């Protein structure tokens, strides 16, 4: 295979096709619409299922239907659409149903704008719907990772019978980069034994999310929690470490904010500051152990996000007060520049040294 210049949204879509996605249901929303458009052509060419639903609410419930019928199914959307889909995510989580969701975040709250943000970190990692559950959340930072994570998402969804999100901001959906697509996989020939295919020669299968009685529902919740713990303990946590071996300071960032942070690390290293980057790739499960070790190693951590400080709380919890954790965040679709991040690191270093720094740019810290 060779690399080709691919737009992020197209890469997500074609990766899903090649990973064996049998059905896609979606609704147009910027900045992910090219994903739906690509599926509208490719899925039909391949005689698979594509359907543009009347709403995100309908789309997610079609996904639920196709999933209970045992097919490998996905949807994609962006922030306001994800809000509407949360109903279906909760029902799927409550019935151990595998599905893949690609969320290309845009500016919020409300209609907001169509520029890239990371404002839905909490929505997806903490509460993808009502009730106690987490999807697995993968956070690509490049178009190549958009492809790799989509393929991985289908594998993890089937392996654990769970929802898997690929969470990216609009920049990753919209930008073009050279990337390599995987070979086409064969579609599965059989449906899972738990799925709805008709009660032929077996007892009827029932897939439901209703559990009357407090103890019944608590038992189901305990099962869900055990499954989540199993995922955590199974080595599914993924992260990237950049120049952390000898680091005195660290940046923690994901997705597009991490790309800008890599350049900031390079600039700061050239200025003689021993700094590195820890980039969580799985936002759930979160690299807690690695962050604790990092906090024990460095003098200070700067969390950089394109939001008001959401992953920040996970970093602080993992760091367990072993090192000070500061924050630099931009919102509304502004992507922090490497120079902005380097400035914030310098301020953090001065601040930790007890030097009062004037001229904070007024953003959250």
């Amino acid at each position, binding site marked *: 295979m060779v690399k080709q210049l691919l737009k992020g949204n197209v890469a997500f879509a074609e990766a899903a096709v090649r990973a064996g996605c049998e059905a896609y249901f979606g609704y147009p929303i910027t900045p992910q619409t090219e994903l739906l458009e690509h599926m509208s052509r490719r899925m039909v060419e391949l005689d698979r299922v594509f359907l543009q639903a009347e*709403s995100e609410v309908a789309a997610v419930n079609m996904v639920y239907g196709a999933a209970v019928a045992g097919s490998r199914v996905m949807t994609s959307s962006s922030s306001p659409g994800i809000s509407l889909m949360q109903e279906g995510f909760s029902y799927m989580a409550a019935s151990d149903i595998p599905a893949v969701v690609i969320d290309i975040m845009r500016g919020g709250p409300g209609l907001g704008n169509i520029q890239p943000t990371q404002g839905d970190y909490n929505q997806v990692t903490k509460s993808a719907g009502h009730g106690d559950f987490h999807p697995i959340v993968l956070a690509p930072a490049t178009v190549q990772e958009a492809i790799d994570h989509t393929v991985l998402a289908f594998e993890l969804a089937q392996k654990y019978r769970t929802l898997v999100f690929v969470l990216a901001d609009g920049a990753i959906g919209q930008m073009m980069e050279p990337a390599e697509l995987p070979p086409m996989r064969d579609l599965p020939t059989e449906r899972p034994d738990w799925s709805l295919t008709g009660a032929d020669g077996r007892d009827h299968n029932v897939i*439901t999310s*209703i559990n009357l009685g407090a103890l019944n529902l608590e038992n189901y919740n305990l099962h869900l929690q055990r499954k989540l713990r199993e995922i955590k303990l199974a080595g599914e946590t993924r992260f990237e470490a950049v120049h952390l071996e000898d680091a005195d300071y660290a940046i923690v960032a994901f997705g597009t904010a991490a790309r800008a942070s890599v350049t900031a690390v390079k600039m700061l290293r050239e200025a003689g500051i021993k700094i590195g980057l820890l980039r969580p790739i799985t936002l759930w499960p979160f690299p807690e152990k690695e962050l604790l070790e990092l906090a024990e190693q460095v003098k200070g951590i700067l969390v950089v996000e394109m939001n008001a400080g959401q992953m920040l709380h996970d970093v602080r919890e993992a760091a367990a007060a072993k090192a000070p954790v500061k924050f630099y965040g931009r919102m509304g679709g502004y992507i922090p520049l490497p120079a902005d991040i380097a400035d914030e690191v310098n301020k953090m270093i001065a601040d930790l040294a007890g030097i009062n720094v004037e001229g904070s740019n007024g953003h959250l810290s």
Partner: protein
Amino acid sequence: MVTFPDEKLVYERPEALADVSTHYCPGCTHGVAHRLVAEVIDELAIREKTILVASVGCSVFSYNYLDVDACEAAHGRAAAMATGIKRVNPDNVVFTYQGDGDLASIGIAETIHAAARGENLTIIFLNNAIYGMTGGQMAPTSLIGQKTSSSPFGRDEHLAGYPLRIVELLAELDGTVYSVRRSLHDARHIIQAKKAIKIAFEAQLMGLGLSIVELLSTCPTNWHMTPTEACDWVRDAMIPYYPLGDYKVAPELMTKTNRKHSAIGGAR
């Protein structure tokens, strides 16, 4: 079972109906509707390939009574969920079983679009003019003047608008192939209802598109009536607003209905 030489079996539990006690209220017609669906599934010999999409409402546990593969949709989303199932497993017979709160209120968009797309599905739609499971609130199908727990002074059209006639509405859509209304208030109408349910499933087996049978049903508990009073109320109050009849019958189904043309409209 002990049998005798001159014994003729005239009544038994359909294979598709589970051997369990009912949880429905006395006088509720859900049990009748369940049985009719089960009899049709048996007669068409489709139990082994049928998938039920249950809905939110009193019939949330319909899968405990119908011995077929089944799932439980979110409130109002049965038509969308059924669409997902049928699109990936087109050889299965997929049907939803929904009440009027579920289908006509929160699920109206999913219902209309499933019909507009001509999804090859069957909808069994029970209309009892009230929200049963939540305790008798006003539904989009509650009649003008009907007192419910959320329209204590009677449904006022100036405040709450007018009741929805679903099968007339869906008959307007090109993707709908069979859209009829029947009633479960007495034996004669129950027999007619069963015939319609069978045609609706046959329409799906023929691959024609969306079929829906609306069944006027009782809710003695929340109507605060005895079962017989409730049956009378269906006849005297509901049928005048919701006329029984065939609102759309695709030409391919004409021979099954013994009709010469697909006339719209019942006895208004």
